[in-house]
């Protein structure tokens, strides 16, 4: 979901701390609590210095993983850090069906295969939801009783196409599973049930079932050749049970036969077997450990499934030919074949459109979120699936100022989504078209930071004077240091601004302002109760199509390489990288001229540092800081992060 211009992304600092080390986290937390600037010679502070020296490059491949839209970020009050989806853990609060919005209890989720057990199905052809409709309606009959079908409102597929009708409009899933079981599973599901019984041991099955099985096979094979005696799920269960028994039988350490696959076949068991090879070669006879106990019935090596009750399926000798003949026949054709996308959700035997079954809707989850490092809950939604409320919701927007970027234009479109503005704008000269910024032409932008905290914040913005990358645009923040008021009572602003609310609003959106106001260096453009607007001056650079300088190409290559981004030995790695690119592409001359994807997007990295005095919370760590500045029971806090402002796309031709 890429955003229309202009946008603002915030970089989560977690990308710079590759390994979540709790000890390190704690240390960094301590330093963030320290208030005195004299403390900067702490060990961790040096790390921070190192980070500060680097300029965030929005085009570096790593930034893809750290840049988030502000509303996706959370904030941990204990770590005092921004938390992105990568630095949280999730816990499922409830499962619900996205179609009927009913909750599925967690005990039922697994047995129902993570799918809705009611009437919710997706179309096997196009994945749109299916509706239960009565056939009587179609014919116009009066009675509501009658056969029911599932029909797709998108592609007009119905279950009639695969010859399925339902007697009741409720519990469609059980009806459907009965139909498919009875048509494919036959009476084999009974033997499958026996097989699943925990009391059944390997030998007993082997002894009991082969006679039954052979009968079943004979009766089945002539009738339906395409599908085996068991339906795929039952066959999977049979195979799983069979191999579980096999493992239990052949492994040297006799484990609980009821244990899951992993227990019997886990590496310690296998390791034991291997180790026993070396330690006691004399005990070679004991290698297949259980063999001593039941030497007659148990084969020494693990065997494969032999009969259908164990999950074996022998296709009829001409099954493949029959399939091919059916594909080639006129009534099948290309349209009769199921596509790969359709087959991925169906049983592996489904080859034709007629084999596709309606898919019960996959469940979705509501999840609560925790901080990965300190385990505090950051987001806890209400339990009910339909509710949109949260019990706990610590979003970053309540702590960091919300950035909004607008072009400084003398017209009325500033707040509209740019998609609706852009087409109309091209004609007007006064309005910069953000999708085609003309190079070397100064654009003024308004950056508004809105504070959602109840404390006033002092903000320092910093940006490289030239954006990193091959397209070098010049950026100037006219007022890099300013204050934002506290998010106090809303009525304050209303009462203050009641004299001239129109003016205030107009100047905020830059409508009236541009006729009167001129952006001045060192001065805030506009200010409100809890927001401040400053002006950014941007001179978009020229695209590399015109000027190709060697060092720019070098920079580009450097950026493409993942590894050489962060280390400092640029010269060394550059040579290698250049050689590499020359080798593969063979069109390097064109390459330097060509634009990389999205290279013409003008993105400005801005470093935001905010300071504020917050009320001291009773906290173990802060008691130390409290002793140092116990004057007003406030603690000086700071938070710093990189943010990326997406201004627009630079057009290739230079226009005046």
């Amino acid at each position: 979901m890429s955003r229309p211009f202009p946008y603002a992304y915030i970089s989560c600092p977690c990308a710079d701390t590759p390994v979540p080390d709790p000890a390190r986290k704690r240390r960094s937390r301590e330093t963030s609590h320290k208030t005195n600037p004299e403390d900067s010679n702490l060990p961790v502070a040096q790390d921070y210095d190192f980070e500060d020296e680097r300029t965030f490059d929005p085009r570096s491949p790593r930034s893809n993983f750290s840049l988030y839209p502000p509303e996706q970020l959370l904030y941990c009050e204990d770590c005092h850090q921004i938390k992105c989806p990568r630095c949280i853990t999730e816990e499922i609060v409830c499962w619900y069906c996205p179609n009927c919005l009913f909750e599925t209890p967690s005990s039922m989720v697994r047995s129902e295969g993570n799918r809705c057990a009611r009437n919710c199905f997706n179309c096997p052809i196009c994945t749109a939801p299916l509706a239960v409709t009565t056939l009587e309606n179609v014919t116009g009959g009066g009675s509501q009783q009658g056969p029911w079908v599932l029909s797709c409102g998108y592609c007009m597929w119905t279950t009639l196409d695969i010859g399925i009708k339902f007697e009741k409009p409720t519990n469609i899933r059980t009806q459907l599973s009965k139909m498919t079981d009875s048509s494919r599973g036959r009476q084999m599901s009974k033997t499958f049930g026996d097989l699943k019984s925990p009391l059944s041991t390997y030998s007993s099955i082997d002894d009991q079932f082969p006679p039954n099985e052979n009968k079943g096979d004979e009766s089945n094979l002539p009738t339906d050749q395409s599908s085996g005696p068991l339906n795929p799920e039952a066959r999977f269960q049979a195979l799983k049970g069979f191999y579980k028994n096999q493992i239990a039988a052949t492994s040297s350490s006799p484990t609980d036969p009821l244990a899951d696959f992993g227990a019997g076949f886990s590496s310690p068991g296998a390791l034991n077997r291997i180790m026993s090879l070396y330690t006691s070669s004399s005990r070679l006879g004991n290698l297949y450990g259980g063999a001593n106990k039941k030497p007659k019935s148990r084969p020494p090596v693990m065997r494969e499934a032999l009969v259908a009750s164990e999950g074996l399926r022998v296709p009829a000798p001409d099954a493949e030919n029959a399939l091919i003949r059916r594909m080639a026949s006129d009534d099948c054709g290309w349209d009769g074949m199921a596509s790969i996308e359709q087959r991925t959700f169906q049983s592996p035997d489904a080859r034709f459109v007629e084999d596709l079954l309606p898919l019960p809707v996959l469940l979705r989850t509501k999840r609560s979120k925790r901080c990965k490092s300190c385990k505090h809950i950051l987001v806890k939604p209400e339990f009910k699936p339909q509710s949109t409320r949260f019990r706990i919701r610590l979003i970053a927007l309540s702590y960091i100022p919300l950035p909004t970027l607008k072009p400084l234009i003398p017209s009325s479109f500033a707040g509209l989504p740019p998609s609706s503005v852009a087409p109309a704008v091209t004609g007007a000269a006064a309005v910069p078209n953000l999708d085609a910024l003309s190079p070397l032409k100064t654009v003024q932008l308004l950056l508004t930071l809105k504070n959602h905290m109840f404390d006033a914040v002092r903000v320092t913005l910093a940006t490289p004077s030239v954006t990193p990358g091959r397209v070098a645009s010049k950026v100037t923040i006219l007022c890099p240091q300013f204050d934002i008021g506290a998010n106090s009572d809303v009525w304050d602003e209303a009462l203050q601004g009641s004299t001239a609310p129109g003016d205030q609003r107009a100047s905020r959106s830059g409508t009236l302002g541009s006729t009167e106001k001129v952006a001045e260096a060192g001065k805030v453009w506009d200010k409100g109760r809890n927001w401040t607007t400053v002006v950014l001056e941007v001179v978009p650079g020229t695209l590399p199509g015109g000027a190709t300088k060697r060092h720019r190409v070098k920079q580009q290559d450097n950026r493409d390489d993942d590894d050489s981004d962060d280390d400092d030995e640029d010269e060394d790695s550059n040579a290698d990288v250049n050689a590499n690119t020359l080798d593969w592409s063979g069109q390097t001359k064109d390459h330097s001229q060509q634009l990389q994807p999205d290279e013409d997007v003008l993105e400005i990295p801005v470093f935001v540092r905010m300071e504020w005095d917050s009320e001291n919370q009773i906290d173990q760590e802060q008691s130390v800081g409290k002793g140092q500045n116990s004057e007003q029971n406030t603690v000086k806090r700071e938070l710093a992060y990189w943010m990326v402002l997406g201004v627009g796309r630079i057009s290739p031709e230079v226009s005046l």
Partner: protein
Amino acid sequence: MPPKVAKGEYIETDTGNKISRRSQIHGTQHIILGGKTVIQAEAVIRGDLYRTSTSSTSASSGDQQQSVSSTPSVAITIGRYSYISKQAVLRPPSRLHRGVHSFYPLKIGDHVFIGERAVVEAASVGNHVHVGRDAVIGSMAILKDFAYVLDGAVVAPGMVVPSWCVVGGAPARIVGEVGEGYGVEGAEGGMARERYRLVGR
């Protein structure tokens, strides 16, 4: 909308609705606007498709947002701070029930954005819903609060989009979720007041 807006492009009603003179609104007495709603030029709102067996075309001129209590059938309800972009089409959903084709009311919540050229036939659209450009919402679909329909998506008839879910494609599928901060005033999903304020200036 050209940048130089002609004087009086919008009719502003008592409750603050801003309705473009160039929008096409049919059956106004069957439409309820909650106030501070914006209807852009060339948007089509079919209030004349209300629930009766005979779809009459009574085009009596009334106030734009007058909720006539004498006629109980309401075709379209739109909440506060909702925004209907240019050339969007709002049609009440319809269904063949017991052999009779009948219309059902279309309810749109607060802070809803309907993109350009979108066609909405949903049964209900919750609060803070975003419908992208050129999207099609099929008949009797339900968009819950904070649903997000991507540009060009085709939401199949009868589909339910749960809260916080992002849907896209044709037919639309759930492709993701919006962040927890979605819908916060001023952030993504919370721009409705700002949008309203800037219309007609």
